[in-house]
């Protein structure tokens, strides 16, 4: 509680109480309000740094909404959507997986591995290449996610720490491979692998990549919504997140639900990795992901783990990532400017959670009045 004395013996009191129930509508309003605040606060910081916030935002959004940039926004949003929808599976079970980045990297590594072998003349024919890279990236991402699950179920290791550590492991493994065994011999010494052949890319004939990715991301979002609403697995995963005692009592196989949920989570991050290497940059190289897996964490939280909302908050992050390059190019502002916005959104999401669950009242209290 916060107390301030005002002149005249009045007291200003800010009280915080738990709110018994949160309606979905209220929750959306709070999230949007906080989002707005995040942009205002970032604007303030830009202003203090000597930039015109209004100018930045205006050129930022007008540029992003132009057809060409919009296409780029959607391309970049795709991996974030896939990873953040994946994280919904983890988070609804109360499994605090912050390892989407690592799982995404494992997806990239596995897909690249298949392509490297393929270019060396091993493995499948052209027509099987795409299914193979999809399967490889998803299995690799999923399996990477399972490591912390096993550590948790077996030894009680905290998943926040293990998933974070495994991110670095995966990123360093990718570095190791592109600098070494998988370095493209015809790449003029650059640390990068061979180019992905077009047969290893997800595409829909007749439409652009951006549309194809968006369709895929939408399909995953809708499917996830249906899984959450109508399947036994979706229901039980929610129970596991809400009340572990009741889950045990009701005979929910907690470990098996955890394994399945986190595997799906990691597999979708792995698929996101495939889109990055096969579509966005065409090959694996160090720093291939600018942190899509981390953006996905904030996006899934901001969307309240509700797939359609997560879909849109991921697109917002796609805009920010794309806009970062824009800031640098046209406004002479460092790219990291958008990171201020992202950080603000992250803070706003945390504050929003608090605001949703609590009621703030401000009371001015006179002398001698019993409240």
């Amino acid at each position, binding site marked *: 509680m916060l107390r301030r004395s005002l002149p005249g013996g009045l007291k200003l009191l800010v009280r915080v109480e738990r709110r018994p129930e949160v309606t979905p509508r209220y929750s959306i309003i709070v999230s949007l309000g906080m989002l707005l605040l995040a942009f205002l606060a970032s604007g303030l910081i830009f202003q203090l740094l000597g930039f015109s916030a209004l100018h930045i935002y205006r050129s930022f959004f007008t540029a992003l909404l132009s057809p060409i940039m919009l296409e780029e926004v959607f391309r970049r949003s795709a991996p974030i959507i896939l990873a953040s929808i994946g994280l919904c599976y983890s988070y609804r079970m109360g499994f605090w997986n912050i390892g989407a980045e690592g799982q995404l990297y494992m997806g990239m590594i596995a897909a690249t591995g298949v392509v490297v072998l393929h270019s060396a003349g091993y493995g499948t024919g052209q027509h099987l290449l795409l299914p193979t890279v999809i399967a490889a990236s998803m299995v690799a991402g999923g399996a990477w996610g399972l490591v912390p699950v096993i550590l948790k179920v077996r030894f009680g290791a905290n998943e926040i720490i293990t998933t974070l550590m495994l991110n670095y492991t995966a990123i360093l493994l990718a570095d190791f491979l592109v600098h070494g065994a998988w370095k493209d011999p015809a790449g003029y010494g650059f640390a990068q692998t061979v180019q992905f052949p077009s047969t290893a890319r997800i595409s829909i004939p007749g439409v652009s990549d951006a549309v194809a990715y968006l369709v895929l991301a939408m399909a995953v979002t809708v499917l996830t919504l249906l899984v959450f609403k109508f399947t036994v697995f979706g229901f039980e995963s929610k129970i596991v997140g809400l009340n572990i005692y*009741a889950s045990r*009592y009701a005979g929910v196989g907690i470990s098996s639900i955890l394994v399945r949920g986190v595997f799906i989570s990691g597999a979708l991050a792995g698929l996101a990795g495939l889109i990055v290497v096969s579509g966005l940059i065409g090959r694996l190289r160090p720093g291939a992901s600018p942190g899509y897996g981390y953006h996905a964490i904030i996006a899934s939280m901001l969307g309240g783990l509700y797939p359609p909302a997560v879909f849109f908050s991921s697109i917002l992050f796609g805009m920010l990532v794309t806009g970062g390059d824009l800031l640098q190019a046209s406004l002479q502002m460092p790219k990291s400017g958008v990171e201020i916005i992202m950080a603000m959104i992250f803070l706003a999401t945390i504050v929003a959670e608090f605001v949703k669950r609590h009621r703030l009242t401000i009371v001015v209290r006179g002398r001698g009045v*019993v409240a």
Partner: protein
Amino acid sequence: MAEDLLERPGPSPTSIPKVEMRGIVKRFPGVVANDGVDFTIYAGEIHALLGENGAGKTTLMNILYGIYTPDAGVIRVRGVPVRLRSPRDAIRLGIGMVHQDFRLIEAHTVVENVFLNYDGLGFIPKWSALESRLEEIASNYGWRLDPRARVGDLSPGEKQQVELLKLLVRGADILLLDEPTSVLTPIETKMLFKTMRRMAEEGKSIVLITHKLSEAMSVSDRVTLMRRGKIVLSKPTKEATIEELSTAMVGAQLIGDAGLEERQSAPADGAPTLQLSALSVMGDEGVLAVKDADLTVYRGEIVGVAGVSGNGQTELVEAIAGLRKPVRGRIILNGADVTGASPRRLMELGLTYIPPEGKKWGIVPELSIYENVALRVARYAPYSRLGVINWRKVAEVAEKVVSEFRVDTASIKSRAGSLSGGNVQRLILGRELTTSKPSLLVAAYPTKGLDIAASEQVRRILSKLRSEGVGVLMLSEDLDEILELSDRIVVMYGGRIVGVVGRGEATPELLGVMMSRGVAASASA
């Protein structure tokens, strides 16, 4: 604080009431929980608040404790109109509440729990001073409570004392106790009542919510009875009779209904459904809570487990339900060795289990009532096929549960957490008993928190199940209930089964001796 009131011992209606609630209205979506309630508390009185499940008792007390704000009505404390916006306001005015379920941190010590969130603690608490302060208060009431004991190690009676200490150190002199006796054994209840009398003599006022009329009659100065959100009766206890109260409470509907009279004797040739041999179970503190228990439950009988709580009963039933792995011994269910089997396997083999702490184990408060029913059935046809849930079917059975067990709720879409204490228990019982066909029912405190009519109904269901050939193992703090229903009574003491008493031989006195001293009596298993 109104010192003059503290000096005047005993209730005296002429003095300014400690608390006056006038015309209190509280609505929740679909229900009026309090509908123009007038409620008065005088200094030095024990005021029993009675009423069926969902009558609005807890809501009324939550309003006085600042948890809910009333939609209409005024509250005066010591004559001064007040607005209570949070428990903090209530505590400042000397009002304290002990909830239906304990709100203690089991891993912390008594002193840590008591002074948690305490205003005058300072940056670095002086624990030793605080400890001696606790000891002083505790000894004043004749409690033997070690301030440094871990709360998880305490018996329910002692936990209650910790809850009371929390209020006392904050200077509460209006104490609201919501069903404090529902978890206590008769002896612990007696202790609590002695404490309450003592407090009343000091001028404190106590509101006691209970479903046991005999308790209200024996300890209170005044009784108030609620029904459907309204006060239907309020008078000095001296002028009230049990008959009058029970009629007013349940209407004429159930009293004298001889459902239990026509009990069939147990089928003599029942096959065993549950066999425990030399079962040992670890408790939470890493010491054996159940030691070498041997027990057989036959189909068509009710076996009651009696014992002072904390003597291994909970751990015993948790082991049978698959929620605790035994360290030694075997559990056989309908001929299959199920030692260490998962709850799901046990369920599928014919076990139905009513957990002791319904709010913690039995429901997910955040979810709706029908989702809580799904908790038990979602995996099975016809409620799901190929992993896809048929929510219509779930809703149908949820409606059935709600109507047959008279769960008082606006709709099956309401959150289970919004149900009153007794209605949570009805939901759990209803779900378990409508959606399963058990051969063994393990019921821990099945009538806990239920009003008279609902307890009757549950007891009747238990004897009906028995006559249908179900084996029933029942825990209860209520000796009368155990004596009334059980064909055999098992007494536990110090984690051991110290005796099995047949229906004819059991008396409250005999059981009392066995429960408190662990003396083995004649075994008739």
